[in-house]
């Protein structure tokens, strides 16, 4: 999952970035509201963590313009202003959630997970495809009752495919959601990770879940193919 952090306080922005990368997210940072709007409009983030007091364009305006352009990215507002009026305003302008500063990290992570689930229309934090269970909170993968150890990158990939369950996802889409601006797109890193996942999940199982669609991409599904 890829997150945009828009926060102008340098220490806070840095710690948000580091902390979220530790959790396996791909993270882009911006210190400026206008840049935040530009990035959010041109990249497929799974969530935006938006500080309200930004230079350039303030958070309200970024939010407003995003929604006006029908960008449905989940937005979590982060701010030092914690009046009821501000919360109502943020939510009415289109924010999905609102977290006042200072915050506890566990809460921030849970709210981000929830925002991402909403964005992908997933009600539960445990994704189930056939006999495969993916617990997005505990970062665990269980197939047919057997826990399968996966690396953070593998989990992120599997998580994304599971959110897009049944849909064909192109390599570039996968890339866009799992890597941030600082990473260099090497040509077949996606294929490599798909291979790792297949090895761990599909190799010993009777039913294959990860399928290739030639020329289109990959799909995670347990339904018989047309």
């Amino acid at each position, binding site marked *: 999952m890829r997150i945009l952090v828009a926060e102008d306080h340098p220490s806070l922005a840095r710690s948000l970035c580091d902390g979220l990368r530790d959790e396996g997210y791909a993270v882009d940072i911006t210190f400026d509201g206008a840049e935040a709007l530009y990035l959010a409009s041109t990249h497929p983030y799974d969530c935006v963590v938006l500080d309200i007091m930004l230079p350039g364009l303030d958070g309200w305006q970024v939010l407003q313009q995003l929604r006006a352009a029908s960008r449905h990215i989940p937005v979590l507002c982060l701010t030092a202003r914690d009046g009821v009026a501000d919360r109502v305003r943020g939510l009415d302008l289109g924010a999905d959630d609102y977290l006042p500063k200072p*915050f506890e990290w566990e809460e921030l992570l849970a709210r981000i997970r929830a925002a991402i689930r909403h964005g992908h229309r997933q009600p539960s934090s445990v994704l189930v495809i056939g006999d495969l269970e993916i617990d997005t909170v505990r970062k665990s993968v269980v197939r047919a009752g057997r826990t399968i150890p996966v690396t953070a990158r593998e989990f992120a990939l599997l998580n994304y495919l599971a959110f897009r369950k049944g849909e064909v996802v192109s390599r570039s889409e996968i890339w866009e959601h799992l890597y941030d601006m600082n990473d260099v797109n090497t040509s077949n890193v996606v294929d490599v990770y798909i291979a790792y996942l297949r090895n761990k999940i599909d190799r010993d199982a009777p039913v294959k879940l990860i399928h290739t669609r030639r020329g289109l991409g990959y799909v995670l599904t347990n339904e018989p193919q047309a």
Partner: protein
Amino acid sequence: MRHTVTRRVAIAILATVWVTLVVGGCFAYWTTRAMLLADLDDSLRARALSLPLVAGGANGAPIPLHASDRYLIQNEVGRTVARSVQEPPLAGGTELIDATFVRLPGSHRLRRIALRTSVAAAGSAGGLETVTIVFSGSAESFDRVLSRLALALAGTGLLSGLAATLVAVHVSRAALRPLHSAADVIAMIDERSLDRRLDAESLPPELSPLVDRTNDMLGRLGHAFAQRRQFLADASHELRTPVAALLSTLQVSLRRPRTEQALRAVLAHCLTDVKMLWRLVERLLEQVHTEQRSSQDKVEEVEAATALAACAHVARQLALNAQVEVITDLSPGLWLRVDADRLRSMMLNLLSNAVEHNRPAGTVQLRTEETPGGGVKLIVADTGGGIAAEHLPHIFEPFYRAHGARSQTGDRHLGLGLYLAQSHAVSMGGRIEVASEVGRGTRFTVVLPPDAVSRRQGKLVDVLRNAHCRIPMD
């Protein structure tokens, strides 16, 4: 003893009404008595003169005597010529009294008059003799009328007095009752409900000035409290982000095992952030102390050139890093009557702002200027980027930053410097003005009134001492 308004009104009304009625009543009584008495005497005289002996054969019907009338007619030598059945009481002694009241036991009091007149003499034909007629009649009806009059007047007076007093007391209380409800309204006002106002309509118009001034005062208090609340809200909100940054950095660091090097880096970051946080807290505390200290200001004679030169010296330390030059143009012999700490704090704020908001190889100019009215201007001008016109009215607000948020290079600007500087200037009776041109620079002018300038003239000794002090000691 303090008298209530009601009591004063009651006593005044009562006294006035009664005094008036007593005076008027007495006047009416005595006037009426005189008139009635004259009437009584006239009718007695008429009856006396219509006695047969006296009237002779004169025309006109004789006036009949009353049952209680008595008379006695004596001639010059004292011989009784005629008399009524009952003896009239005699005039005492040889003196004749014209009219008087006589009290006899067993009957109502009489009015006795004595007349001297000429009648036809008995025995001699056509001769006249002078006789004295002592005639008395009952004064009963006279007395009755007058006693009723007295009673009526006294009764009316008493009742009027009481009635007027009661009405006055009632009116006075009713007029003052709205004051009680106004007092209740005021009793309920505390710092959370300063938007209540007294209703001038419900109070007598005479109290309008009081009500208006009270409402004005409530307005001023409300404004002051609102400003304070706003400041506290802004301050607490300003503290949250640095605290959030610290909290977040530490939490992230502790979530996983880290190398010692990584931990050291985190600790160094946190140290910087804590120092900044402390500076913010210090500024906030300074503001609180500033407000409290106003009454504890130590106003003393301060030589402007020396004090400002010291501030410029501190500013030069900052300027070294920024490659900015601090130029001073301070006239010696200018003395100020201000709190020295406030002056220093205010000028350091302005100077450090000027140094930080400058461009490389720029300058900061510090100079003093005397104004025609006897005041003085302390001017700090920089060659920085300037401040846009739309921000200028707001820069003295606490925590206002022209960019709307913190700068990317780290927050050395807490947004309180100008606010505090302005409050120092105001405490000296002055103000700070700002002029700026984007791209050219900004000029802050501290305008101090004549009251802040000392009448002390600069002496040669001071000039010399001043010159000596201008050499910065490092």
